[in-house]
């Protein structure tokens, strides 16, 4: 269990502590035996990029705090509205298709070995035709992944250590963390809470959660997530047109994370490719996790258009294909069968029904917090509610909510300095838990 003290970024490594105390104990004993060296070190230097990382990845840290809390209060009914983990069971049609596919793998006719690294052709076609209808995305531009988190790192491997990146602030931590790991970042600056060399594009109520692009310097890559995790905000068409134009003017590549597109309730775009010109400047990453409850099944996709070219004219798709063929061996064929079922007519209907359930949860949460007089954002086009606690430290608010209501949330500063003073509340949960959590918040905060 890794501890992190609030407000500090010191990591205690239990294994290292253990080894140090063992060594100490060894030295203190008077018996000198010809014992082999405990923990002989190799001479391989630790990757300096790993050293730059400040803390644990955010979500395991939240889990670990929750676990500690459960140990402290073994009888408390802890409700997790922290990690955005889906809770509704898979639609039967989807589960059955995976079960059938698995069974067929035991038959000579149904057995499949290695799949195409780019993914099953029918699934790629189904994604292109169903989810990008009228947007001229070809199946050959769709790459099936085992989820956005893996794919974001593969994209970083593709782009390399020399690119400069911009992220929204706050943002899903994987963009920054993978960037640091790849060597795209400088040192962490404690005063600002930012890594050097990364451009943080502030997104807050004051700018309608869309960065002021006039103030944003050029970077090679722009990570943009809409509907947004954690703020729940969906960018408008006009905003995305600005973004695409900005990318065109600067010759940048947008990595557009559309994992929550299914939650859009209004006219906000669901894909960056709804914007003319986006094919020349954007990669889109998406996932079945939040659409279909595939958080454990692991399936997603990435669109890399043919027209997306490096400065020397080389197609990005070609290099990405090489990465996929070398660093990956395709998503699980069983998961892909499930994905295909999700995109059938019946599957889509079932999947939308789960999304609606979470949207209703979000509405309940938005109402609860609003009724308490708090400024609440998101929750309309995304399964996240972004609650403002002005003047507070988000880890303190997180701790207080956890301590007093046994509800786990996520402190906004975990998503970047722009998240300070905010708490993210997830709308993924069983209905009764959502209602119960809302009740508890009301009694704490009223």
């Amino acid at each position, binding site marked *: 269990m890794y501890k992190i003290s609030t407000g500090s970024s010191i990591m205690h490594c239990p294994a290292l502590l253990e080894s140090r105390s063992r060594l100490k104990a060894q030295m203190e004993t008077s018996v000198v035996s010809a014992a082999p060296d405990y923990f002989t070190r190799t001479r391989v230097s630790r990757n300096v990029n790993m050293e730059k990382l400040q803390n644990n990845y955010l979500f395991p840290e939240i889990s670990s705090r929750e676990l500690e809390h459960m140990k402290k209060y073994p009888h408390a009914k802890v409700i997790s509205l922290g990690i955005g983990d889906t809770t509704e069971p898979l639609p039967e049609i989807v589960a059955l298709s995976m079960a059938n596919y698995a069974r067929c793998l035991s038959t000579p006719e149904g057995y499949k070995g290695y799949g195409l690294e780019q993914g099953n052709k029918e699934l790629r076609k189904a994604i292109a035709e169903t989810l990008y209808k009228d947007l001229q995305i070809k199946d*050959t531009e769709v790459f099936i992944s085992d989820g956005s988190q893996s794919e974001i790192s593969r994209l970083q*491997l593709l782009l*390399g250590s020399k690119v400069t990146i911009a992220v929204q602030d706050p943002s899903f931590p994987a963009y920054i963390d993978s960037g640091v790991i790849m060597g795209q970042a400088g040192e962490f600056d404690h005063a600002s809470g930012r890594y050097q060399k990364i451009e943080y594009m502030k997104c807050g109520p004051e700018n309608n959660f869309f960065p002021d692009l006039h103030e944003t310097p050029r970077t090679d890559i722009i990570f943009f997530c809409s509907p947004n995790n954690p703020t729940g905000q969906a960018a408008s068409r006009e905003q995305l047109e600005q973004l695409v134009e900005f990318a065109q003017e600067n010759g*940048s590549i947008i990595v557009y994370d559309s994992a929550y597109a299914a939650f859009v309730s209004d006219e906000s775009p669901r894909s960056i490719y709804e914007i003319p010109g986006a094919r020349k400047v954007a990669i889109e990453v998406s996932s079945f996790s939040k659409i279909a409850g595939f958080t454990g099944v*692991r399936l997603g996709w990435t669109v890399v258009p043919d027209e997306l070219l490096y400065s020397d*004219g080389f197609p990005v798709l070609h290099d990405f294909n090489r990465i996929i063929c070398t660093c990956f061996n395709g998503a699980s064929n069983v998961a892909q069968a499930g994905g295909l079922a999700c995109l059938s007519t019946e599957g889509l209907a079932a999947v939308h029904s789960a999304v609606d359930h979470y949207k209703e949860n979000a509405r309940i949460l938005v109402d609860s917090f609003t009724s308490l007089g708090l400024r609440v954002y998101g929750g309309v086009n995304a399964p996240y509610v972004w609650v403002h606690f002005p003047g507070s430290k988000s880890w303190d608010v997180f701790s207080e909510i956890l301590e007093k209501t046994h509800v786990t949330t996520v402190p906004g500063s975990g998503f970047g300095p722009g998240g300070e003073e905010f708490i993210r509340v997830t709308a993924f949960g069983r209905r009764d838990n959502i209602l119960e959590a809302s009740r508890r918040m009301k009694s704490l905060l009223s």
Partner: protein
Amino acid sequence: MHCIQHNPSTTSLSSSASSIHGQNKFSDIRTQSISVRGRDGGRSMIKCIATSSSEKTAYKTQVSRNENLAKLQAGYLFPEIARRRAAHLLKYPDAQVISLGIGDTTEPIPQVITTAMAERSRALSTVKGYSGYGAEQGEKPLRAAIASNFYADVGIEEDDIFVSDGAKSDISRLQVLFGSKVTMAVQDPSYPAYVDSSVIMGQTGQFQKDVEKYGKIEYMRCNPENGFFPDLSKVFCTDIIFFCSPNNPTGSAASREQLIKLVQFAKDNGSIIVYDSAYAMYVSENKPRSIFEIPGAKEVAIEVSSFSKYAGFTGVRLGWTVIPKELLYSDGFPVAKDFNRIVCTAFNGASNIAQAGGLACLSPEGIKAMQDVVGFYKENTQIILDTFNSLGFKVYGGTNAPYVWVHFPGQSSWDVFNEILEKTHVVTTPGSGFGPGGEGFIRVSAFGNRNNVLEACSRFKQLYK
């Protein structure tokens, strides 16, 4: 850009792999190759050629191409083999092409395993059985089962195990872990993912055409003369040493004595061994199945393995990596801790359904079923071994691995590959695809249905009688 179907008769199948696809030289040729699988499972190559009018006006971003990708000489080896197979099928549409090239499993997965996966799938549609995100390191029961089944006697514990979606993904995650500044050594020949992932990470220099090696990688020659174990006295010290045993492609399994030397070498040099044990269950002789059978290995080695070749999980995707707690960087920081961070950030766990399958693999019934599958492929290997032996070839491997390594002295392996394909319609893999040390050899993989293996062997006999 417009795409044209590639006409195989205009391909020049030259003997050097690197000249075939100038994928690197996009700016000269203005073509790119994308392989797409046809209905018959074969691949066809589609060439996209930029037309001259769009060439001048095609919008380009100002993002520089990653120079590490530009260093790669050709496509990854196995898609290239698939492409050649597909081209051959186009040329001979009525030929019964037999694939002993890519090591792709063919036997159905034992029912005990698929039943578990089917049950897990169904359970996911119930309130009680639904699970969302799993632990990034893998489900506890599976980690425990891996530890107890494979590492009981060598003191590797459940929390030293990280479940993956297969060895190939983990090899790249390990490279991301190590970073661009480490130096590495590989066997020569070796499974191409080690070298290619190293190039992608920026650990290497440019490819040197004259020696067919990337700068800054230490290639440890493994050949019949040295019993397929490198002469460590001639090997330069590197940070990381990739070592695969039983070996892909040579089929050779290192002895205990050899591995003791390897561990000692790593200790003396402060190196980390990345030991690929994906074929451990194929060991027939008294050879180690895990690097951790060697005392002291826990302080110098990581082990990567996979369910692919045991349970036919090549498409299901499941493997594991062992990083002992005792493995430390030079500053004392535990390697496992950083790998855990990578796994939490760059990955989100293997599919829960695949993991349910893995757990069933490790039940007593599952282990027996996997042993039967392995036994089947080993019989195939024997048939292939016997065939080439009877034809008077010098043949290696095949005893402890599902690969037979056939020597064609003085010949270019791509030429031999082409000749075999052209004249017998059997796909193999040219040794030089695995590194310059593979030149003069052909790898024949023993994954295939029995009839196909027998048929392929009778065709070899015809060709080489």
